[in-house]
């Protein structure tokens, strides 16, 4: 299970098994989406699978995730998402009404995002060999001229910006998971971020890195960027926006909000000179209203993320191994 958690084990699986097997320069960048040259156009191409439980949660559903997850993977290379594919893997016996609700949510999310579901597929697996419904989406989008956004471009002196409060999606899903139902009044932040990215690109084409901190949260995303670019990242812990209720839920469960999944937030590495303007543009967008500078990129400790704690101490924010496990007491 740990190999699917978005942490070090997931990265190992990709680096040690998938990348060598598939090869190819487009894959080697290991970004959220591949940048491809096709007939003179620069395309972003991405795929993602969704195995979330429960299928519906406060603020969204697996259908919303399937659209927004892939749209965001495209947007993180600066692309304008255009088309999606959608694969349904259904477990024998699943209620068709449930499938219809998910399809409806997926279609609505696609319309909201302004992308078209252009092709799809359905498979059914035997009862007991699935988890109700799994989804896979792939998407393509167009990367504007002059835009080059990828993890390797993070550079010392870059400012790290987060587009809003972290931890809401993970806590919202946990709050509805069997055995752990609790009321936090937190909804998933699930949203498509490409219009926010477009507003940022309207200010400057010098966005070095964009990353949506999904599985593994802010910690995993920053570690991946630090490793890809061989730079250090210094995080100011108190600057990271964490809603009180997320903090309380995490405290109760022994989780660290920096490692909790988000589905509607992005991290941006921006040259210091551009940071104020980019921040202003983000705050003018509904999905970036709470955008905040949370750290900076440094030459020291390459590949490592270090947090300055609220009390003035420091700690290493390591790559998570797999999924976080709630503690015993």
């Amino acid at each position, binding site marked *: 299970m740990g190999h699917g958690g978005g942490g070090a084990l997931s990265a190992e699986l990709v680096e040690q098994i998938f990348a060598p097997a598939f090869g190819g320069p487009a894959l080697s960048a290991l970004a959220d989406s591949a940048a491809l040259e096709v007939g003179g156009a620069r395309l972003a191409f991405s795929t993602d699978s969704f195995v979330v439980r429960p299928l519906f949660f406060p603020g969204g559903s697996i259908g919303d995730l399937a659209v927004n997850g892939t749209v965001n993977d495209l947007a993180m290379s600066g692309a304008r998402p255009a088309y999606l594919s959608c694969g349904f893997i259904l477990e024998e016996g699943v209620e068709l009404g449930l499938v219809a609700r998910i399809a409806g949510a997926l279609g609505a999310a696609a319309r909201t995002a302004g992308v078209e579901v252009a092709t799809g597929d359905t498979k059914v697996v035997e009862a007991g060999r699935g988890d109700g419904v799994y989804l896979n989406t792939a998407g393509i989008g167009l990367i504007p001229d002059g835009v080059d956004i990828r993890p390797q471009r993070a550079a010392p002196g870059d400012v790290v910006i987060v587009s809003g409060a972290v931890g809401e999606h993970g806590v919202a899903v946990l709050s509805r998971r069997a055995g752990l139902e609790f009321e936090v009044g937190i909804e998933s932040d699930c949203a498509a971020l490409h219009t926010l990215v477009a507003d940022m690109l309207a200010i400057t084409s010098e966005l070095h890195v964009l990353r949506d901190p999904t599985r593994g949260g802010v910690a995993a995303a920053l570690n991946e960027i630090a490793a890809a670019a061989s730079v250090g990242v210094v995080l100011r812990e108190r600057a990271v926006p964490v809603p*009180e209720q997320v903090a309380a839920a995490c405290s109760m469960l022994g989780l660290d909000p920096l490692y909790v999944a988000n589905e509607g937030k992005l991290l941006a590495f921006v040259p210091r000179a551009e940071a104020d303007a980019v921040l202003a543009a983000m705050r003018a967008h509904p999905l970036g209203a709470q955008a905040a500078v949370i750290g*900076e990129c440094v030459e020291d400790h390459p590949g490592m993320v270090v947090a300055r704690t609220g*009390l003035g101490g420091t700690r290493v924010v390591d790559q998570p191994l797999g999924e976080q496990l709630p*503690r*015993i*007491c």
Partner: protein
Amino acid sequence: MKYIEEFQDPELAGKLLDDIHATVTRPWALMEVCGGQTHSIIRHGIDQLLPEELELIHGPGCPVCVTPLELIDKALEIASRPGVIFCSFGDMLRVPGTGRDLFQVRAEGGDVRVVYSPLDALALARENPDREVVFFGIGFETTAPPNAMAVHLAAREGLRNFSLLVSHVRVPPAIEAIMNAPHCRVRAFLAAGHVCSVMGTEEYPELAERHRVPIVVTGFEPLDILEGVRRAVRQLEAGRATVENAYQRAVVPQGNPAARAMLAEVFTTTDRGWRGIGVIPDSGWRLAPRFEEFDAEHRFSVEGITTREPAACRSGEVLQGLLKPHECEAFGTTCTPRTPLGATMVSSEGACAAYYLYRRLGGTTTAPLEASTVD
């Protein structure tokens, strides 16, 4: 909902730190009993901010870490059996037994489920009358009452397919064992606040007096810990050794009478083996004779298990405060969260895990950063 922010306030923390710096005149070693406190200390960098004379020693208060290997192996054996639904808190799943862990049992087809309460396991037993549902009941005085309640309810409902694999341990005998150990350097204890919220503080004055050791009941947020340290240091510097409650918002002297009554009804104290430490007299709980049918060890025949601790693992010394995690030769090399030799490297409250996660190499760690220029 403001309690977390309030108890992490840097300005108030600074005042407490100033007080501690002004009070300390010579070296003292303080032990935080609870693994949750260890993580808070390391996570917030509190140890970096204390006077050099103060040494924080990490205690044996991680229930996952001290669960005996033999019991882990029994859990693995029971969880592997067909027809069993084995339920556990999440942080037990990566703890290595002899050769494998519960995650591996699950990958091999065992029905191992993470639950968040023993009552969830009880619900599974009701929903699956044709299956045996076993809950791995580990923990200190904090988790013991709800586990006792689960057994109490199972008995009342006549549930025949629910049982508890019990490995409960008690804090006061552990403190006693630490103080009696040769080479003990501990001069004061930060007692675990949540344990005292159940048991109260009545067990401690006799211990404090007999061993001439201050015991300060302490919470888990940074300000709680600094206040606990401040009070312990004040006592030490003044030559006093009493019990103080620095966690009054959660702890009253008599504890939680309902929880204590449930414990007394369902459990009885017993000698208990602690992983890496050995048997400590009267340091555990087992099910009282009249609840024996709910004891998984009794219900499943799991005798004759041969256990084998990795020779290189020195977690026992870490748990007794005799060794800092990074002083172990295996730390960060052959022993990592990915390839743990002992439970202290995988438990969310384990001292080795805290050191590894926050990379406290050599005790000097990452030098405190200059104030960020970013705003």
